[in-house]
């Protein structure tokens, strides 16, 4: 027995001895920073603890970057949480492949059908459910109504890529920064690339590339998406210094009314005010939502959506109470509360009816009518290839790399995996 296994074994013995005496603890690790969501989750945990004596459910928050960096080690130690936050996609697949997740298909057979099937399917590894989603998001253009009016742009006329480029030109001509992007963190720029890929190649684009069909990531779809992004970047539509702007700063620029559009997820509404210089941000009445335009000859539909799918995964050794809590958590009444308080757009069918905020309402309607939903590519493809996606998106938009070279870099990274 090596020293390490000895240390682990003795730690296990102590842990077991401890839990035999005390109540069952269920620890849930998450990264959600939205105050309304945190409040709701703590309340759900308190409800459960009150009605289930002997069980102590606790939500623990960890900052996003730290969470991602620590998770691999944590999951393989005795200190692992029972449930943990996930974006599904490549990382979840790797965790499942390493045998760190629990198959809960049979346990949640009654709950899963009450949810959006797109979201539920995202939490399947090898055909088995290893967790449940709670939130479905959509990335869309948020636009400043006043600035659009000032430049004479009508949002309802922006349907195709050419309409969109026309709007960008009009805004620029009016002396308005058309688009704000936090390219210093790279992934916000990848939202453009992600959307262009599904608009150009349709729903088969990403699955085909993953399966290495038609040249994998080097195929015409990815090159074409790059060309469109390059075309947009050539108009110089972004705020000055966008390469060093962080995500939070970019939300502030939008909140200060210094840029007309922001291609962002639903959380922008909660971020634009606190990050603005005034601290007040834009009033919601001045913000509109614009779907990502269609591209000429593209296979994707205007109703195809791209955005995050979030949920909780169950770890291998989690007690039965953890799965029981997950089901308790997934009740419609809590999903409705999430919808009503604007915490997030819930995945439980019918719960979105409780949404009061008109902008969130619009997103929820889009998602309900979605013909195909794509998870963020950097999550879907896993951290390694995802990192390359984010990197090439910025390089292509800034004209530092050709679309062809970018697609080739993607394929090379895919082959190195």
């Amino acid at each position, binding site marked *: 027995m090596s020293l390490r296994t000895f240390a682990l074994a003795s730690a296990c013995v102590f842990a077991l001895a401890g839990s035999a005496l005390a109540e069952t603890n269920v620890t849930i690790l998450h990264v959600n920073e939205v105050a309304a969501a945190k409040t709701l989750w703590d309340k759900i945990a308190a409800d459960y603890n009150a009605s289930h004596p002997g069980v102590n459910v606790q939500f623990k928050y960890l900052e996003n970057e730290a969470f991602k960096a620590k998770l691999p080690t944590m999951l393989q130690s005795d200190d692992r949480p029972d449930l943990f936050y996930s974006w599904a996609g490549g990382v979840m697949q790797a965790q499942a492949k390493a045998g760190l997740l629990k198959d809960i298909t049979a346990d949640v057979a009654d709950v899963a059908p009450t949810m959006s099937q797109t979201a539920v399917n995202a939490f399947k590894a090898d055909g088995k459910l290893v967790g449940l989603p709670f939130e479905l998001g959509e990335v869309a253009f948020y636009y400043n109504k006043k600035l659009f009016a000032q430049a004479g742009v009508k949002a309802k006329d922006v349907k195709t890529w050419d309409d969109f480029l026309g709007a960008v030109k009009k805004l620029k001509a009016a002396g308005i920064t058309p688009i704000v992007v936090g390219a210093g963190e*790279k992934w916000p720029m990848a939202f453009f690339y992600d959307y262009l890929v599904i608009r150009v190649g349709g729903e088969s684009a990403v699955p085909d590339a993953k399966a290495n069909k038609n040249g994998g990531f080097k195929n015409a779809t990815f090159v074409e998406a790059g060309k469109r992004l390059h075309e947009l970047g050539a108009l110089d539509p972004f705020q000055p210094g966008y390469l060093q702007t962080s995500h939070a700063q970019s939300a502030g620029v939008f909140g200060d009314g210094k840029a007309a559009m922001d291609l962002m997820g639903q959380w922008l509404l909660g971020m634009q005010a606190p990050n603005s210089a005034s601290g007040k941000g834009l009033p919601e009445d001045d913000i509109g939502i614009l779907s990502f335009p269609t591209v000429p000859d593209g296979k994707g539909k205007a109703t195809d959506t791209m955005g995050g799918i979030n949920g909780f995964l169950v770890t291998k050794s989690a007690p039965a109470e953890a799965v029981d809590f997950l089901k308790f958590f997934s009740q419609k009444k809590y999903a409705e509360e999430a919808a009503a308080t604007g915490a997030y757009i819930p995945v439980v069918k019918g719960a979105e009816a409780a949404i009061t905020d008109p902008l969130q309402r619009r997103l929820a309607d889009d998602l309900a009518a979605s013909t195909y939903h794509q998870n963020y590519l950097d999550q879907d493809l896993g951290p390694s290839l995802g*990192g390359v996606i984010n990197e090439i998106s910025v390089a292509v938009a800034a004209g530092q790399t050709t679309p062809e070279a970018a697609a080739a870099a993607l394929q090379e990274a895919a082959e190195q995996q």
Partner: protein
Amino acid sequence: MPTAETAHFEPARRMSANGWAVALVFLPPALLLFTVFVALPMVEAAWYGFYDWDGYGRPERFIGLKNYGYLIGNPVFARSLVNNGLVIAVSLLVELPLALAAAMAVAGRVVGAVWFRMIFFLPYVLADVAAGLIWRYMFSGDYGLVATITGALGLQPYYLLADRDWAFTAILIVIIWKYFGFYMMLYIAGLKGIDKSVLEAAEVDGASALQRFRYITLPLLGPMIRLSIFFAVVGSLQLFDIIVPLTGGGPFDTTHTMVSFLYYFGITRMRVGFGSAVGVVLFFICVTFAIGYQRIFMRND
């Protein structure tokens, strides 16, 4: 057959029974800590370097030297090596001379010397990440130092950290600002150790201030200078904390150092095998330098 010489050294080499007992009691804990926290991780990193591994489960896909092959063809890694070289060059050619000049100025009994010493040393005390964040705002084109300058001159806002040609220069400025105080303190300590009477004797003999510096202060400061060069080079090779808050390696991955490359391309992308290979390369560069430098320059110190 023992010669006279070995016989002479024998008593010193052989430990007394008492000494063995002490070693038996005190060595295992230290040895254990060293093995578990230093030696073992190093061996593990070298081992992981031969695998394609994402950090989950056991490393199973053995790929031989491929990770090292990817490194050779990687333009970002090449750039980070160049950047590390630049940091070393600037540390040795700008930072250390500046530190020595500052030390000469504030080591004596000048009015306010203590205050200046403290002010120069303050940046070093500041956490690296905090310093990085402060300078991020200083360099921002919207507010801060650069914005004030461009504003006063009526120029277009300039975004230094978004400029691929100049972003690393900005980082170098922060590095000098941050670390020169530390070397200044080293030199002050060295200067205090120089016997005043030697300098006075030289002065009586008619040596000019420059001559006194060149022929007395500098040679007597030798051990301290050699030590500071050692620290500066090793510190430059391991530079990381300043990069992350300032640029995160951007724009277009032009401002990475080897360690930030390891972090962003190995850890955040979960290519633990590849990251380990970078770590091994870094380790060999550092060890080669450390041993070589100590053998050649610090033998007598």
